[in-house]
């Protein structure tokens, strides 16, 4: 370990460097053996399972590849199904209801591929450095820029959390459940998921809930879409949306914001670290992320297809909220379809509430250098759990305020997410190209081309939105 001995004012730590050296083989092993924590032991238990599944030859397990994948999937699936949250599903529903089957189907697939490009980088960062995104930003770029990044994250996360509880309230409202009971029940589920004191258990519970995002598929089937039109739209991107160009631009921006947002970067990297993934797991992490992309894009397309009948029947969905979507769909796709849609919105809200509040708590813990792992018991890492539950409670409380302008928050959240994304991507790209941090796992040329391309696209979309707002006549407004 090389200390920073030349600088008398240097921080009292040694410089880290990327390594795949086993802790048992390191020079510090005797010292580390006396400092092991509950978190280390739990993580070692997870690594033992992975090592056992990975062995080949004599003693190799049956279905070795499947078992290994089962053990290593999680952060990627969770981040994308978590991002198929209440405001995102409402954005997709608005796409379908206002413009039918056409441009937005392939556009959603494109945005998810953009999501893959950036999320794959967080897998590598987490697996190589074993540090969360906020921690690396503060370490490498200093507190000044770190606090800006945290400000964007906390504001975005809090507003998004509010929208998740709006989804919960609206989804269960369809079944006549009172808002206080719906929101209280959701908070109990969030609290229940985090009190396991074990990352693995938390991850499996949340994935179990997240898979119910598939409820949009039967809802879409009940809407009896014209599959020929679906195929045609996916291949040709036609028909293009017609109408108010400003509204179309906002919807495009909201659709991008439904797929690529700052909390996803922070969440997936921290989850990869908490899961204990190592550089040799990067390919499994990529597969996990691609699986998340695949599932989330199918479910998002299903939401568009489920609400497309509103467009075909000329129903104006411009100001619809979740419950109104379900109620409007009822005469068109039946009570079952509408109920599935409402349940889907509830599920989307609850899973995202868990993931987003966890993302905030990870970032707080990393910045304040307090315990920040779901493998830590409550008494060891109470500030981490307090932030997690406190942010969820505060957001839930806002939703219960009578006459709170819920629709505006829902519409604005995804737009804010897109606007806050370019600085977050700049930090990500600099970190993932930093050889001192990443060693041999730095970005290749194509990853940089794709990453910079996504960043420029988001900046152009944001600038377009700004110009259209300030000069509405440019878009014929």
């Amino acid at each position, binding site marked *: 370990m090389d200390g920073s001995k030349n600088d008398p004012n240097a921080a009292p730590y040694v410089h880290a460097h990327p390594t795949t050296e086993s802790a048992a083989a390191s020079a510090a092993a005797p010292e580390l053996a006396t400092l092991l924590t509950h978190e280390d032991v739990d993580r070692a238990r997870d690594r033992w399972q992975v090592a056992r599944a990975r062995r080949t030859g004599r003693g190799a397990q049956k279905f070795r590849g499947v078992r290994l994948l089962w053990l290593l999937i999680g952060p990627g699936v969770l981040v994308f199904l978590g991002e198929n949250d209440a405001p995102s599903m409402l954005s997709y529903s608005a796409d379908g209801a206002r413009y039918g089957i056409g441009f937005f189907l392939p556009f959603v697939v494109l945005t998810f591929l953009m999501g893959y490009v950036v999320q794959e980088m967080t897998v590598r960062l987490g697996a190589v450095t074993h540090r969360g995104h906020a921690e690396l930003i503060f370490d*490498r770029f200093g507190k000044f820029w770190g606090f800006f990044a945290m400000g964007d994250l906390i504001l975005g996360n809090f507003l998004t959390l509010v929208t998740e509880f709006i989804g919960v309230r609206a989804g269960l409202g369809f079944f006549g459940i009172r808002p206080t009971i719906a929101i209280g029940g959701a908070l109990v589920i969030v609290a229940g998921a985090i009190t396991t004191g074990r990352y693995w258990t938390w991850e499996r519970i949340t994935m179990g809930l997240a898979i119910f995002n598939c409820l949009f598929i039967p809802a879409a089937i009940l809407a009896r879409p014209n599959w020929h039109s679906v195929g045609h739209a996916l291949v040709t991107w036609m028909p293009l949306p017609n109408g108010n160009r400003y509204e179309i631009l906002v919807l495009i921006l909201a659709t991008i914001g439904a797929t690529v947002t700052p909390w996803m970067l922070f969440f997936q990297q921290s989850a990869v670290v908490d899961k204990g993934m190592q550089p040799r797991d990067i390919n499994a992490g990529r597969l996990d992320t691609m699986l998340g992309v695949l599932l989330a894009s199918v479910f998002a397309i299903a939401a568009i297809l489920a609400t497309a009948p509103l467009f075909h029947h000329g129903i104006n969905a411009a100001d619809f909220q979740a419950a109104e979507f379900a109620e409007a769909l009822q005469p068109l796709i039946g009570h079952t379809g509408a109920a599935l849609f409402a349940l889907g919105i509830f599920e989307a809200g609850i899973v995202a509430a868990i993931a987003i509040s966890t993302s905030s708590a990870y970032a707080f813990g990393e910045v304040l250098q307090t315990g920040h792992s779901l493998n830590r018991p409550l008494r060891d890492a109470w500030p981490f759990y307090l932030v997690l539950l406190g942010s969820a409670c505060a957001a839930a409380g806002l939703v219960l305020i009578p006459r709170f302008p819920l629709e505006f928050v829902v519409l604005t959240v995804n737009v804010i997410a897109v606007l806050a994304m370019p600085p977050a991507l700049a930090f990500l790209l600099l970190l993932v190209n930093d050889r001192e941090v990443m060693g041999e796992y730095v970005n290749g040329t194509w990853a940089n081309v794709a990453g910079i391309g996504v960043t420029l696209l988001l900046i152009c979309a944001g600038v377009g*939105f700004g110009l259209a707002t300030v000069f509405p006549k440019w878009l014929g407004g």
Partner: protein
Amino acid sequence: MYEVTNKNGVEPVAVDDGQPRLEDPGVVLSLLEADQVVAAKELMRFGPQKLSRGTRAMFWCLRVYVVVMMIIVLVSVLQAFRAAH
């Protein structure tokens, strides 16, 4: 007992069909990477990167971009809110 040597050729990890003996610190350390142990992470940090003038300029431009765009969003939301009521 079987040994799984990882791709990078570091210490083999001992695994068998029973439960891991995690009360033994040596077993825990053999399953983790050197900078994966919580105590090691607290002792070692990636120091600050020297930011070039170009990088600092890019950060400032992006910060101005975010602030300006947030103001535009706020104004448009307030306008929409006023129009609705």
